[in-house]
């Protein structure tokens, strides 16, 4: 078990900088998930921790020791790769035990440790098979076993579940979680799947464009996104964003067709802001209800447990998620009730969160 400290870590390839100064503290035994769209630098950051990518600037320390110049094997990390990267010519047992063989562990002890790991992962009956003869989930387990057997200080996961089918993914997710609870080893898990991120993480790191956008518990990130990017990236369907302009006594939305009365709280008149509302925070009411926004239904997606209703709000797309048994017809009018505490405001310029507003009930247009 070990803590990881990342200070101003940078990575560039020739002139292209892909990681721009990341600061991150990971406590010992913590399960941290790095979430972001593809190309955001999350895998690169993980590989910098592993030692597979050189660190162009800044510092990474594991357990207080700066590891910038250390080889992967000297860092005490184990990694599970996206495509498992099992050695195709070795049996499961040889795959799991390879790192011990390299380290010169005597054969008897090796066999014993392979057996122990195989028992934990329920791989005992597969030890003699070649990776080719395994299913995706079994390969995944072998890859985990290969990481576990070294008893590493840090576990690194590089999108390990993305090649599994949906059902297996859910199962492996909970197995990884259980495994972490038992081994309690510091883990860093990279994914672009927000459900995976939310369910696994003690703490979530959302990255975009080589920068950390927000660090926090999954609940924090969901309820108080630090930027417009985080707000729209986390949560499905994505948060609705309505562009607006600050006015003397409130906010004009959608090019002035809707107004929101609220205290201005220091922002100069004319400032562009974006208001975000999660689809699941909107309630459907009868059209024309006082304080509700009127909209036209475009499309209804049935999800079984609920449905997503896409509506048109003066030309702007807007989605509502509801579990109520309402089935509005496309083309019909509905009212949208939004509570002030569910509104998020972001600066249109920087995208960062603005906590200066206290919105009251929106009023229908002029």
């Amino acid at each position, binding site marked *: 078990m070990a803590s990881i400290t990342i200070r101003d870590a940078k990575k560039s390839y020739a002139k292209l900088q892909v990681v721009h100064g990341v600061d991150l503290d990971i406590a010992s035994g913590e399960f941290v998930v790095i979430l972001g769209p593809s190309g955001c630098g999350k895998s690169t950051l993980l590989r910098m921790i592993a030692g*597979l990518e050189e660190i162009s600037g800044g510092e990474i320390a594991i357990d207080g020791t700066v590891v910038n110049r250390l080889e*992967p094997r000297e860092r005490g990390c184990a990694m599970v790769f996206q495509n498992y990267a099992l*050695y*195709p010519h070795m049996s499961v047992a040889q795959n799991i035990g390879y*790192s011990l063989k390299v380290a010169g562990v005597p054969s008897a002890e090796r066999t014993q440790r392979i057996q122990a790991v195989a028992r934990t992962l329920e791989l005992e009956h597969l030890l003699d098979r070649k990776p080719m003869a395994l299913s995706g989930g079994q390969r995944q387990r072998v890859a985990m076993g290969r990481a576990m057997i070294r008893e590493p200080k840090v576990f690194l996961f590089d999108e390990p579940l993305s090649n599994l089918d949906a059902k297996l993914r859910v199962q492996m997710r909970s197995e990884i979680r259980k495994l972490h609870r038992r081994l309690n080893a510091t883990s860093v898990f990279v994914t672009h799947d927000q459900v995976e991120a939310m369910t696994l993480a003690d703490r979530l790191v959302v990255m975009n464009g080589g920068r950390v956008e927000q660090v926090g518990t999954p609940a924090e990130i969901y309820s108080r996104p630090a930027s417009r990017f985080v707000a729209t990236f986390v949560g499905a369907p994505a948060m609705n964003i309505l562009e607006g302009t600050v006015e003397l006594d409130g906010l004009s939305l959608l090019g002035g067709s809707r107004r929101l009365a609220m205290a201005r709280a220091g922002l100069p008149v004319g400032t562009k802001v974006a208001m975000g509302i999660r689809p699941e925070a909107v309630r459907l009411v009868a059209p024309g209800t006082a304080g509700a926004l009127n909209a036209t239904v475009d499309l209804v997606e049935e999800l079984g447990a609920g449905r997503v209703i896409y509506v048109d709000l003066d030309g702007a797309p807007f989605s509502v998620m509801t579990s109520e048994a309402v089935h509005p017809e496309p083309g019909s009018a509905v009212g949208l009730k939004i509570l002030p505490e569910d509104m998020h405001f972001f600066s249109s310029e920087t995208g960062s969160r603005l906590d200066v507003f206290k919105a009251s009930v929106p009023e229908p247009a002029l």
Partner: protein
Amino acid sequence: MVERTPILNFVTHVILFLGFLMAVAPFVIVAIASSHNLKDVNDVPMSLLPGSDFWVNIKTAWTTADLGPKLLNSFIMATGVAAGKVIISALTAFSIVYFRYPGRTFIFWLIFVTLMLPLEVRIVPTYAVVANVLSPYQAILDVTGLSWLIEKVSGVQVSLNLGLLNSYSGLILPLIATATGTFLYRQFFLTVPDELTEAARMDGAGPIRFFIDILLPLSRNNMAALGTIMFLWAWNQYLWPLLITTDQSHATAVTELKQLIPNVGGIPEWNIAMAGTLIVMLPPLIVVVAMQRWFVRGLIATEK
């Protein structure tokens, strides 16, 4: 694509069969000729029914051309070339694909150039080098004036000499130094996923361990294919062995076949010559049959 085209199928089979006949006919004629006696083999046209002197001819050819030791020489040379080639190519390809170092591209092109300069093209300089392996160094010493300096200072005349004529190393080494195998390996190494390399690094394996434990076992099929091709190629070498083996004890079977070919005005013992040819053809045939399965796999698909 599967189509039912009976006429086309028939035509393709006819073409294939004709090709097969063309490939196998000379071989059949050699076999038949080697079974005739001296009179029958010189009949015009030669009878295409096998004669009865096969074993006699084989025996005569064997003793006349002293094929026992010559086959051994050929075998040592072909095995040496095949093994050397497999090892050298694997190492050079490993270096080119997996390491970043200054001059890498330059070295890559240098190797590539050898493809355009086969042994036959550079046979005179190669002969000069093999005659005295150290002659390039001697030349460097002479040109730079170092040998003059050494002679002045110590009174020793520098004269480096290490000849490889009439030796197995002389037969083998020049044939190893070409690029074909390097490129075969390079193509294969490029298909090995990077994740595998990284997994090995995470497991603590250094470059040499990775090479021996992971890369070599994965390229088994390539090794078999390359080894087979190189064995055949080296076995069939004629010009080079002829040039550098002046001593009979190092001559190869292929060059010694010449001994069996009747001279102008000599007895036209073509039956003996054909019998000798048959013996010399046999070992490569055995190698191909034995390695066939691996050979084909190594040249076509990769299991991953």
